[in-house]
């Protein structure tokens, strides 16, 4: 029973990781690609990680799984944040539109300003 559940987790993780990869190829904008890689990629990795914890259930395995999941949840969004920010700071002709009533990318600092401000 628990093996079947773990198998479903591994399969679902693989499917989400595959979809994240397809998304990276299909989307035509860096920011949209970041959406695919952070969300689907993170969930795919977490599902794959949880499966061994279900099968083995020992202290050593579970602790490593919990540490791995926490580390993924902490680092994946930060990486996407940094890549996306570098993109909007340096490229001005991205496909994202600014909506009325929102200043959007006009709020973002220019590259020179960003460099001057960064520590």
């Amino acid at each position, binding site marked *: 029973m628990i093996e079947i559940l773990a198998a479903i987790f591994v399969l679902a993780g693989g499917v989400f990781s595959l979809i994240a990869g397809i*998304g990276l190829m299909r989307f035509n904008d860096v*920011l949209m690609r970041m959406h695919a890689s952070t969300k689907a990629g993170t969930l795919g990795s977490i599902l794959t990680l949880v499966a061994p914890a279900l099968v083995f259930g020992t202290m050593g395995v579970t*602790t490593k799984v919990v540490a791995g999941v926490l580390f993924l*949840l902490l680092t994946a*969004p930060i990486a996407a944040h940094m890549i996306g920010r570098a993109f909007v700071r340096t490229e001005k002709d991205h496909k994202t*539109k*600014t*909506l009325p009533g929102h200043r959007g990318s006009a709020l973002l600092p220019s590259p020179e300003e960003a460099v001057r*401000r960064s520590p």
Partner: protein
Amino acid sequence: MNALAANLVLAVIWAALTGDISSGSLLSGLVVGFFALWMVQPILGLDPLYFRRMYRSTRLAVFFLWELLKSSVEVAVEVLRPRGRARPAFVEMPLDVKSDLEIMLVANLISLTPGTLSLEVMPDRSTLIVHAMFGDDPDALVASMKNGLERMVKEAFE
């Protein structure tokens, strides 16, 4: 007495008494200990804030995992749809939380929840710039982020 320390000690005792020190028994000890402490809280004079914080942190974690699942399915549907439906847009979200840790949590959680990716915190910490995948109704999006994630983070750290 420190409620967190008491809860941890109870979890270890529970695991030791059941004769199996594994993550499962420690976790169930933690849960049973939490409810036991909650019941005797007025007698021992424990800090009621601890129970509220634990409850709110757990609620935040469950809510967040659910949102991560939802957002992954949403992205997957968008990836597999033959003709894209995405209307990317920048959205500004005014920030109420002030401390470094809270801002980091809010920004991280926004990146992992449906259709949004945090891009930049303004230097004065008043605004978070968010890239939205479906930017048809930005005001509803901002309202849902503020009432969902940000409120929960604020309550967990209160």
